[in-house]
C-alpha cells in the first residue's frame, strides 16, 4: 500500500472516531466528548493534509484528477470549514455532528475508488488546473457551510415558534440567530466569489487551450446556473431585503442544484469534464 494511502486510511479512522464522539456528545449532551470530537477532527485534518501533500509531491499534480483525489479534497475542505466555524464561535461545534460524518462518508467512498495516479494529459497540463480545482472546492465548501448554517437557523426558528424540534437543547448552544444568518450570508458570498473565480479561471484556461472562453459544455452551463442561483440569493437578500427563514430556505434549496452541477452532470450529460470524477 502506498504511504499516502496508509496515511489517508489513518485520517479516515480518526474522522470515524471524531464522528462517534460528536454523535455521542449530541445524544448524551457531553461537552467534554464534544471537545474531544473537535480535537480529533483537527488531528484527522492534519493527517489528511499530510496525505494529500505526500501524493501531490509524488504524482506531481494537485488533487484534481479522479474520484479519489477530488472526493478526498472535498472532505478535507468540509472538515476545514467545520473547524473554521468552531474557531469563529465555539457554539458551532454542534454542527460537527452533521459535517464530520458527511466528510467521513465522502472520504470513505474515495478510499474505495482507484488510487492509481492519473497521468496529466496535454490538455490538463496547465497551472490553471490547480487554480480551477482549488476555487471549485472552496466554493463548494462555502456553499455547504451556508447550507448547514441555514438548516441550523431553520431548526431554531421552528423551536422559537414553539414547535417541538429534536436536539432543541443542542440548537440553543448555537450563536444568536442574527449571527447564524449573517454567517450564512458571508459563506454564500465567499462561495459566490470563489465559484466566480472558478468559472473565470476555467474560461481563461479554455481560451488558452482551444481559443474559446465559453463553449456551453453542460458542466460549464450548470456551473453558471448554480452561480446564477446564488446570485439570485444575494439579489434577494441585498436588494429585496430577504432575511432570516426566507433567505435560509433559498440557501437550502440551492444546494441540490449545486450538487447536481458537480456530481449529476457527468452522469447525465456527455461533458469534457467527465474524466475528473473517474472512479
Amino acid at each position, binding site marked *: 500500500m502506498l504511504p499516502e494511502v496508509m496515511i489517508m486510511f489513518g485520517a479516515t479512522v480518526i474522522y470515524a472516531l471524531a464522528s462517534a464522539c460528536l454523535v455521542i456528545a449530541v445524544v448524551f449532551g457531553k461537552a467534554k466528548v464534544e471537545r474531544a470530537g473537535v480535537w480529533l477532527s483537527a488531528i484527522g485534518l492534519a493527517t489528511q493534509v499530510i496525505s494529500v501533500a505526500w501524493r501531490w509531491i509524488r504524482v506531481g499534480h494537485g488533487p484534481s484528477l479522479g474520484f479519489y483525489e477530488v472526493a478526498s479534497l472535498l472532505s478535507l475542505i468540509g472538515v476545514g470549514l467545520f473547524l473554521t466555524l468552531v474557531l469563529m464561535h465555539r457554539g458551532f461545534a454542534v454542527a460537527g455532528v452533521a459535517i464530520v460524518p458527511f466528510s467521513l462518508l465522502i472520504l470513505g467512498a474515495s478510499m474505495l475508488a482507484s488510487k492509481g495516479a492519473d497521468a496529466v494529459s496535454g490538455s490538463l497540463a*496547465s497551472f490553471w488546473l490547480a487554480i480551477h480545482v482549488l476555487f471549485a472546492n472552496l466554493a463548494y465548501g462555502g456553499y455547504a457551510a451556508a447550507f448547514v448554517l441555514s438548516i441550523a437557523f431553520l431548526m431554531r426558528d421552528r423551536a422559537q415558534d414553539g414547535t417541538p424540534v429534536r436536539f432543541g437543547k443542542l440548537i440553543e448552544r448555537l450563536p444568536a440567530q442574527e449571527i447564524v444568518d449573517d454567517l450564512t450570508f458571508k459563506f454564500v458570498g465567499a462561495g459566490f466569489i470563489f465559484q466566480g473565480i472558478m468559472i473565470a479561471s476555467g474560461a481563461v484556461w479554455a481560451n488558452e487551450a482551444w481559443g474559446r472562453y465559453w463553449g456551453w459544455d453542460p458542466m460549464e452551463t450548470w456551473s453558471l446556473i448554480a452561480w446564477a442561483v446564488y446570485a439570485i440569493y444575494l439579489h434577494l437578500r441585498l436588494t429585496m431585503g430577504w432575511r432570516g427563514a426566507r433567505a435560509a430556505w433559498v440557501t437550502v434549496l440551492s444546494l441540490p442544484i449545486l450538487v447536481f452541477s458537480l456530481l449529476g452532470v457527468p452522469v447525465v450529460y456527455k461533458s469534457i469534464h467527465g474524466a475528473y470524477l473517474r472512479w
Partner: protein
Amino acid sequence: MARLWRGLRSRRVASYLLVYVTAFFGVATLVPWGGPESPEVMEWAAANPFAESVVRALGMHDPYTTPWFLVPALWLAASTCACAYERTVSALRVMRSQGSVKSGDLRSLEGADALHFRLPASGDADPLDRVAAVARSVGMRVRRGPVAIFGYSRSIGLLGSPVFHAAMGLLFVFATMGWLTRAEGGIALLRDRAKEDARASYLAGATTGLLFGDAYTGYELTVREVIENHIVDGVGRGSAARIEVRDDDRLVRSQLVYTNHPLRLGTTLIHHPKDRWGLAAVISVGDTGSVQAQTIEVPFERDPDAPLGHRPYLFTIEPSVGEAIDVSVTPDKAARLAILAGSRDRAIKSDAVIGEGESFVIPRGPRITVVELTRWAEVTVVRDWSVPFLYLMFILGTVGVTLTMYVPYRSLIARTARRADGDETVVSVVVRAQKNDPAFRLRVMEAFQNDGFERIG
C-alpha cells in the same frame, strides 16, 4: 420613456429576469444543439417526435439566438446597467451626506427598529461622549452634533454594488460585441508553405461574427516544424507545430505551438489543435490542352482505422472537353502515394504508386507528379478583441462583490435625552446595515451593554 426607465430599474423585474435566464440555461441543456442534419439532433428527433416539433418550432436547437433568450437577456443587461447607474448616484449621495443628521434620521429614532438604552447618571461626563466612544469601539467614525451623533464606517463598501453591476453590464456588452466581431477558423498548413491569413485560406471558411467584415490580418503563416508528441517537463503535450508569422518580409513571431501554449499576436491567438497533423503531399497536374496545369496541396487526415493510417484525399480534374476525372490519393507506409484515377463514364481507369519526384500519366488524361512529400499541421486562428476586457470586467465584478460583502457600509445615529427626573439618560440608537451585515445591530447592542448601558427597548 419614464415607464421604460421604471421597468429597467425595477429590482423585482431584474430578479424575475435573472430567474428566467437561469431557468433557460437549464432548459437549453435538455436538447441537443445543431442543424437538422446534425447526427445528435436527428437521433433525438427520432426518439422524441412530439417534443421535437415543439423544440424545432421554438428554435431550441440553437437556443441562444432565439428571441426567448435574447430579449430577456438584453433586458437583464440593460437593467443591470440601469441598476449600476442608480446605485452609483445613491452611493455618491450617501458619501456626500456623511455626518449630517437630518430631521428624517432623527424621526427614525422613534421607529420600531430603534434600540433604547438607559444610562444611569454618572457625574459631569457628557453621555453623548460615552455614546460616541461606544460607536468608535464598533469601528465607526463619529461626527457629533448638539443632541446626536452620526457614526459611519469606511464608505468604499458603498461602491461595491455599483462597481459589480457596472462590471456585469459591461461584461455582457463586451461579450456581445466580441461575439459580433470575432473570427475563428482552421487553416491546414503544409511544412514550409506559407498561407495568407485571408478568408480563402480557412478550411470550410472561418466562422465570423456579423460585424467582422473582412478584417483578416493578411499575415503569412508558415509551419516550420511538426512534432508528433512534444514533451514538456516529462508530460506529453501531444503534437506541436513551430509556427512563423510574417508581415511581408518582416518576421512578426515564431513559436512552438501546442495545447495550452498558443501564439499570441495582440488579441489574436493561434492554436494548434492537438493531434491535427499528418502526412501531406504537393501534387502537380500537368497541362494537356484541355486540362489546366495546377498544383494541389494535399493534407492527409490521419485515421487509425484506415489501412494505411490516413484517409484517401479526393480531388477532381475538370477538363474543358470530356468527362471529369476523379482522383484518389492515399499515402502508404513506404512514404509513397497510391493514386487511383477514373472518369465518371468509366472510360478512364488507372492506378499507380509513385514517390516524391515521380509521375505518371493518366491515359487520355494529364500527367500527375508528386512534387513533394511532407507533413502538415492545422492551426486555428481566433480573433477576439473582447477577451481582455471580459477578464477586466470579471476582476472588477469580483472586487465589487467582495467590497459589498466584506466591507459593508454601516452607519448609526444615536441621540441622548435626559429624563425629567434628571437621574438618568435615555439613549436611542438606529443601526443601518441590515441587508449586508445583519449581525451589526447585535454587535452594537452588545457594545452598549458591555459599556454599562441597560437596554430598555
